[in-house]
């Protein structure tokens, strides 16, 4: 549904990464890990921007939604300028989030901005008593954020950088393979598509169930415009916004993309 949410805290985690907490006292709908909101940015933007749920928690006694965004376009620039007390008009929560059923041991692999939705997932897994191990990879030391939040939730956290300037060196999937001893019940991943493709390939090879959270350009965010089409396993057409953004083992046809014209 549509909500007007008041900002109760904003913070720059990095020069280009902004975290904001929104008062969701009024929101009765359940917000699930992996879902997203369509956020009105104002100014001369026309479309809302899809922003994934980073966390749902409490701040000074108020129930809050945490959104963490990278400032990269006109819309996110406008959002980054918002102040405490400003009101954001959002639609949501939208999408099919992560499935936590039948998981006793979970491994999570996140890259870059893709670590955001994994934070709320980690919270939910830990709360359920799931043995949770989080691998978060960043380009370099200067690009690291949110790692302390993961640790605060009580999960086992492995931080890596592509260039080895902090933590373990190498791509997140490589670091994961180096640590890999025992199959988890579920491998959750979110990050650049190239990274997720390597995770999915490894999961398939090891016969581990996986769930990946995809990113696609969106119009409406709720299934009306067909802008975010993806191809399902049975060759029918799906929507990343409604059937995803989280897709599990075998849900998408190879690549999941509409390849040819017409």
């Amino acid at each position: 549904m549509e909500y007007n949410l008041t900002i109760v805290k904003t913070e720059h985690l990095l020069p280009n990464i902004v975290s904001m907490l929104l008062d969701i006292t009024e929101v009765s709908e359940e917000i699930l890990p992996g879902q997203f909101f369509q956020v009105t940015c104002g100014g001369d933007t026309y479309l809302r921007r899809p922003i994934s749920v980073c966390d749902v928690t409490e701040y000074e006694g108020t129930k809050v939604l945490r959104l963490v965004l990278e400032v990269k376009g006109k819309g996110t620039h406008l959002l980054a300028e918002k102040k405490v007390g400003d009101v954001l008009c959002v639609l949501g929560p939208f999408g099919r989030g992560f499935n936590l059923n039948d998981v006793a041991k979970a491994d999570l692999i996140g890259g870059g901005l893709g670590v955001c939705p994994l934070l709320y997932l980690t919270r939910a897994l830990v709360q359920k008593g799931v043995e949770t191990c989080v691998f978060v990879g960043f380009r370099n030391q200067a690009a690291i954020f949110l790692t302390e939040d993961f640790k605060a939730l009580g999960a086992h956290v492995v931080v890596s950088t592509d260039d080895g300037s902090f933590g373990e060196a190498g791509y997140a999937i490589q670091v994961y393979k180096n640590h890999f001893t025992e199959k988890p019940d579920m491998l959750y991943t979110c990050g650049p598509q190239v990274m997720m493709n390597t995770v999915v390939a490894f999961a398939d090879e090891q016969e581990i169930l996986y769930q990946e959270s995809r990113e696609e350009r969106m119009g409406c965010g709720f299934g009306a415009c067909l802008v975010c089409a993806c191809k399902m396993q049975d060759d029918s057409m799906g929507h990343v916004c409604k059937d995803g953004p989280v897709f599990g083992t075998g849900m998408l046809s190879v690549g999941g993309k509409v390849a040819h014209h017409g």
Partner: protein
Amino acid sequence: MADLNLSVDIGGLKLHSPVIAASGTFGFGHEFEPYADLNRLGGISVKGLTLKPRQGNPAPRIAETAGGILNSVGLQNPGVEAFIEKEIPYLRQFKTKIIANLAGSCEDDYVQAAALLNEADVDAVELNVSCPNVKAGCAAFGQDPVALEGLVKAVRKVLPAKPLIIKLTPNVTSIAETARAAVSGGADAVSLINTLLGMKIDARRMRPVLANVTGGMSGPCVKPVALRMVYEVSKAVNVPIIGMGGIETGEDAAEFILAGASAVQVGTANLVHPNAVTKVEDGLIQYMQDMKFTSIADFRGKLQIG
């Protein structure tokens, strides 16, 4: 206060409200049920249908532009038969008219699909002869008055039982001329405008933003063009006109009616405000009360010039 009568007759299609959801922006209605009372809508023009299912164009299929968007969805749809079987029963639950928006890449496709729709439980057919996204000839019908008249005649023959609306493309030199061609072919009404062909370029990447290179522009940025075209068409033909292009408020809708439209469609606004159709109808009622109009006919085409 006098009773308001919002009903209109669009070439035999009787609507209890002049506010219609525009094709391609409202799916088959499902997604909007939580936000808008579909019973209040005069009609729903469903996602553009083709004889056979289509997967549409590669992503990215959308780009933002000042005051609107560009899309290159490319007629992704489940095909006419699946629509008839799966979607009509759902839509029939509501007190709204079902308008089947139909596209094709050759006359044969249109005719075969129209024959199926003639037998189906739809209230009208809106021929999309203007979609700029399909290379195989869709745009050609809407841009060539002779071809258009021939197509409308052929469809009319297999669709004797339903009101036939021709949706015109703005991507022509004279929309009055294509409107006249549609009417001589046997159209009961015309709707306009479809999207304006445009493109967006990412200068840093030196690439077009849409995978399809070009796309259809819609939203508030096209409203002035749409109004001018509705005005021109209203001077050229005497069948009812359904106006659209950037409508977001009741006042916007009133502008189209003043320019000569009998009904309006709301498109892109639905994607950003899923209750847009309700807001437009509420705003139109407010406008009529303020202006002391009791029916759409009271102000349709009543633009005062000079």
